[in-house]
């Protein structure tokens, strides 16, 4: 993957910049970098913003960030892959994050996850073939008081059971059938 980026860097950069000039999201991203005075230590903040705007971090986007911050692409790619929060693959239209923290785990989060996996026919970390649902796990979202918790499209939902969880994602997975 790294090799792909560096090999094609020279030919791709003008293309990326041309593409970026026509896309408003790149302008917002650049304004965000400017706010941080294009400082190298703002890289993580910039990647957060990029993921917020684009949904995921594709190679061209990482190259754009590297070019604008005057950082080697290897450094940007290294940071993007080190942190779990950043994803280099496109996500489904809906997301479902099952908390697997200790409190949720002892209260049966593993069963909740298994039920969703079975219903959606995907494993944790995967996306349904029709790109409707991405299923993920979290280390702990700090909602231990209402364990087991599941985050559906950004909304933390308390006290989930396998049945409740399947019911919740049902509308998102039936389209594929």
């Amino acid at each position, binding site marked *: 993957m790294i090799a792909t980026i560096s090999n094609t860097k020279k030919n791709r950069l003008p293309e990326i910049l041309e593409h970026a000039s026509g896309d408003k999201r790149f302008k917002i991203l650049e304004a965000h970098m400017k706010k941080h005075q294009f400082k190298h230590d703002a890289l993580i903040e910039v990647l957060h913003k990029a993921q917020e705007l684009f949904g995921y971090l594709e190679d061209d986007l990482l190259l754009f960030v590297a070019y604008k911050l005057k950082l080697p692409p290897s450094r940007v790619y290294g940071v993007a892959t*080190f942190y779990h929060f950043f994803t280099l693959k496109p996500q489904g239209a809906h997301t479902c994050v099952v908390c697997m923290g*200790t409190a949720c*785990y002892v209260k049966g989060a593993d069963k909740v996850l298994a039920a969703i996996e079975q219903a959606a026919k995907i494993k944790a970390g995967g996306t349904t073939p029709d790109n409707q649902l991405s299923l993920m796990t*979290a*280390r702990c979202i700090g*909602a*231990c*008081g*209402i364990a087991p918790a599941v985050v559906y499209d950004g909304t*933390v939902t308390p006290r989930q059971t396998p049945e409740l969880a399947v019911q919740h994602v049902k509308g998102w997975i039936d389209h594929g059938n």
Partner: protein
Amino acid sequence: MVIDDLNAIAEAERAARKKYTLRCCMAAGCHSSNSVAVKKALEQAVKDAGLEDLVEVRGVGCMRLCCQGPLVQVDPDGTLYEKVRPEDSASLVGTLKGGTTHVQKGDPNSPFFTEQLSIVLANSGYIDPERIESYIAADGYRALHDVLREMTPKEVVDEIIKSGLRGRGGAGFPTGLKWGTVAKTESAQKYVICNADEGDPGAFMDRSVLESDPHSILEGMAIAGYAVGANQGFVYVRAEYPLAISRLQNAIKQAKQRGLLGSGIFESPFTFNIDVRIGAGAFVCGEETALMMSVEGKRGTPRPRPPFPAESGLWGCPTLINNVETFANVAPILRKGADWFASIGTEKSKGTKVFALAGKITNTGLIEVPMGTKLRDIVEKMGGGAPDGAPIKAVQTGGPSGGCIPAEALDTPVDYESLASLGSIMGSGGMIVMDDATRMVDVARFFMEFCMDESCGKCVPCRAGTVQMHSLLEKILNREATAADLQRLEELCQMVRDTSLCGLGQTAPNPVLSTLRFFRSEYEELLKKETAHNGEPRAAIR
């Protein structure tokens, strides 16, 4: 801003108080249980009943009994309502005019509440975390004023040393000593960092403090900045805590507007700014050297110590790193005096500790108790034991770096040394209760899987060791392991503990070692039977 301005704000805030206050919990737990809609409905109900002049609806921070949320408490009589729904609001407001309601009532005089002693959480559940005036009315920023106008940096450090405060992030290093080292190191530029990368699964104390009382952290950091000679602070927060991040950013903005952060605070020459840095989901970034790498925008990998951050930290400058809860203790200590603080707790562990009580326990939530409180009092008296009266098997403290304390040892007082002697650690304060249904080998594997995933990959013992230990635990759980495998697991635990670069690897074997120490039979039951010659397995128990 001078002291008269501060007093005027506090006075105006107190004068605006109404006869009744409906305090509505807006911290993460209740927030997820729809408390925003509850608050809105209550406001509407007050309007409909024409009681706007008599009743204030106030969004507050964590009211602690998270499992019964959304919580609403009525002042001045203190009636506590649990599991409030938006449609209950009319009848709830009606009780103020002599009506009745069917909403479930909680008991504010139950041991869960009465056994608590609040220093860090003193404002939590009372003040509005979104309004600086609410914090100022609760004596906020008074300690910062007194420190800047009346004390030298050395006196501040001495006061913290005298208080006996120790780091609340887990290791328990004396806070005053750390401050003193940073203060003594000569440098034109120094930094203060607040470690809010609360990564331990099952811990949510720091999150609650940030969500409930963000200004107390800012005040503590500013005092620390004055004491050590730093003018820039960073709060490093997990990306998984969006509510805490927004409240913190809002608090910083308000403090700047009021001149309580920035240049010339309280008309002194002292300048202090705070920026928020958002993590990106790496557990290892809770380790201080890795955290600093991440603040610099790099991969969060740790480095060997020494040099310690106090001498060479962020961008090579002397850096003070303390945990959220440590900073939250600072302002109360300076306001009420080191002697007052030192009078609470045990000989070596002073003050209080906040714990997140969760797992198989009736009262899930947040508690703050004096150091030295017995585990049994916390779990049985305050927590109400396991639901359905099931026997408690163990209490897990310290997350993936800690261990499982068996039910027989519940009479242990909670302090740094006692927990360490049981092979666990105080940790940041997550306390997970496990009942009979929990298999300890499974728990050990759960934590090892966590450490395996979260190992940053820099040093070999942690990177390869956690994978090997995890596969051995899998083997044991699949009933394919022999006594030799168990022995190898123990050897690996020692090796990884002794040779890893940072705290993550050094403590990764703790859950295995502590469960082996107290629940060895559960491991042995899962082993294959061996024959006499060569230790070759003969038959598996299926």
